[in-house]
């Protein structure tokens, strides 16, 4: 069950263009499963930035000198992520978590490809560890715009059977995108399941590639969230249910992990006309909020 915790920064370290924050998190740490996230409050109790920011849980330590802790990987760009990147040891950071549905793990020791784009690799290492513990083969494909934006290369090398790196500018690994490399990885290692986390465009490409090959995929999506706990309906995307009906589904509690073949990637950001409750007429800009 998610909970709110008044955490504290234990450490901040730089990793390329990212800041890795370790935060005290009490029993959030013990409850976390790979793919879940925390929602961090920005700027103290009187902050004018009211909305929490979502971060994948990169790692946890269940028991230590500080009790449970969680690690998050922050890519500073807007006001909230910049504020977090400027935190120091001992500063207060309020957490809500663990939130969302985790990656589901295969029962059998199958061959898995884990694909991360930019900081999207953050949740994949906990996942890799648990897959390995089940006897699964793990191949990792990490991609980013530049070398600075690749996260966790060394960790990947420690955990995965093979690691393939791609950068848009060729500063490290193959020049190009993860999807360019993924097909080869899947063929070579007989991938049964693809796990992916990263920008929506990448997820769409990865999911479509997996589905086209009849391979099962699990994608952790990133949608703008106001509450992160399922009460506001801002974070929705069109997902096809078991009954074949498309619904606008909350990515914060029904996701962020979805089966790649159930998300209508091309329609994200729209209400497809065949969605349950879609209205062909209603286009007044007033009210209805």
């Amino acid at each position, binding site marked *: 069950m998610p909970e709110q915790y008044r955490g504290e920064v234990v450490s901040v370290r730089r990793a390329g263009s990212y800041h890795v924050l370790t935060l005290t998190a009490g029993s959030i740490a013990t409850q976390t499963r790979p793919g879940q996230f925390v929602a961090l409050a920005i700027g103290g109790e009187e902050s004018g930035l009211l909305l929490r920011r979502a971060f994948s849980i990169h790692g946890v330590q269940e028991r230590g000198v500080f009790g449970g802790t969680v690690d998050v990987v922050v890519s500073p760009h807007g006001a909230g992520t910049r504020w977090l990147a400027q935190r120091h040891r001992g500063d207060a950071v309020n957490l809500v978590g663990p939130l969302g549905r985790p990656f589901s793990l295969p029962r059998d020791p199958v061959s898995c490809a884990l694909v991360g784009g930019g900081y999207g690799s953050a949740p994949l290492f906990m996942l890799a560890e648990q897959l390995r513990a089940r006897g699964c083969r793990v191949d990792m494909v990490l991609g980013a715009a530049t070398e600075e934006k690749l996260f966790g290369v060394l960790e990947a090398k420690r955990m995965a059977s093979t690691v393939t790196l791609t950068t848009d500018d060729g500063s490290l690994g193959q020049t190009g995108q993860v999807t360019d490399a993924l097909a080869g990885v899947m063929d070579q290692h007989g991938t049964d399941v693809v796990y992916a986390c990263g920008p929506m465009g990448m997820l769409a490409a990865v999911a479509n590639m997996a589905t086209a090959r009849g391979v099962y995929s699990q994608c952790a999506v990133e949608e703008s969230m*106001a509450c992160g706990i399922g009460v*506001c309906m801002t974070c929705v995307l069109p997902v096809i249910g078991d009954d074949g009906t498309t619904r606008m589904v909350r990515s914060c509690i029904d996701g962020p992990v979805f089966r790649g073949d159930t998300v209508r990637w091309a329609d994200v950001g729209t209400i497809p006309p065949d969605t349950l409750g879609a209205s062909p007429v209603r286009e007044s800009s007033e009210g209805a909020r």
Partner: protein
Amino acid sequence: MTRATVVPAESPSPWSDGRVNMSTSLAGLEMPSPVLTASGCAAAGRELDQFFDITRLGAVVTKSITLEPRAGRPTPRMAETPSGMLNSIGLQGPGITAFVERDLAWLTQRGARTVVSIAGDTVEDYAKLAKTLRMHDGVDAIEVNISCPNVAERGQVFACSPDSASAVIQAVRRNTDSRVPILAKLSPDVTDITSIAVACVRAGADGLSVINTLLGLVIDTEQMRPALAGVTGGLSGPAIRPVAVRCVWQIRQALPDIPILGMGGIRTGLDALQFILAGAQAVSVGTTVFNDPSGPIRVHQELSTALAERGFSSLAEAVSYAHRAPQDRGLSESIAPAEIDEDSL
């Protein structure tokens, strides 16, 4: 009533600090706490029940429900703004049938007091919603969200016209058991909110919910187009609090006896106290829940402490207190009478 020394409350709320009787009554809806959730900021209570015991709330106010399932607006649906946010959800929801079966049934079984918020495109929609609710237990009050475009009036919002607002309230009143109070939820986007308030009360509203969001627009300067897919959205959060307190104040002056559920930017107990002093019998905590999921409980506790510190032995004594003339305040250290300039209101 005078503000006297602190006396033990007769029936203290089971979870206040014991010094102040926090129970309140809103048009016959008796509640042990004056703090409720706000429609659209608590879904149907289930998610928040993970963070605190929702039966401790005054009531859960559910997301406005429509007749049919609704997919809502495209994303992005929100933009953060200074001390607030803009949202354009478009009333996404499962429709009244699924709501009654799943959400209302759960709330009832959970033992939570429930205010069901309803929304429609036509007067007839509201009437049908009320008829459906009438057949079910567990509806402690109905909040009528009239900040919706009226299809018959080319999309003009019901809450912006006294006639449309009255028509909706009348239709709901006619189709609702007289024991179930009806709250009309008013929009601040009007020239004179008191005239809409008066119209709703004449049409049979037992109380008023004040206020809904303010219409706003944010332009994304990178993309150089509106940040929300729905273009405009509703502004909420502490940024709107002074507007909300002003609306409660004006309505209390115009309608001294009408029960008011105040809301708009309540983040702390002192924020809630402003609404109580301005004339609200109870308050809803909305956007703050996104920042602090157990915010409503914290607000209750802070309000209880704030009342005790000011020498009130019950919440009821503080309602409308800011309107009182100095001689009626029971203050020993009587301060100079404040000028009340009716014209400037």
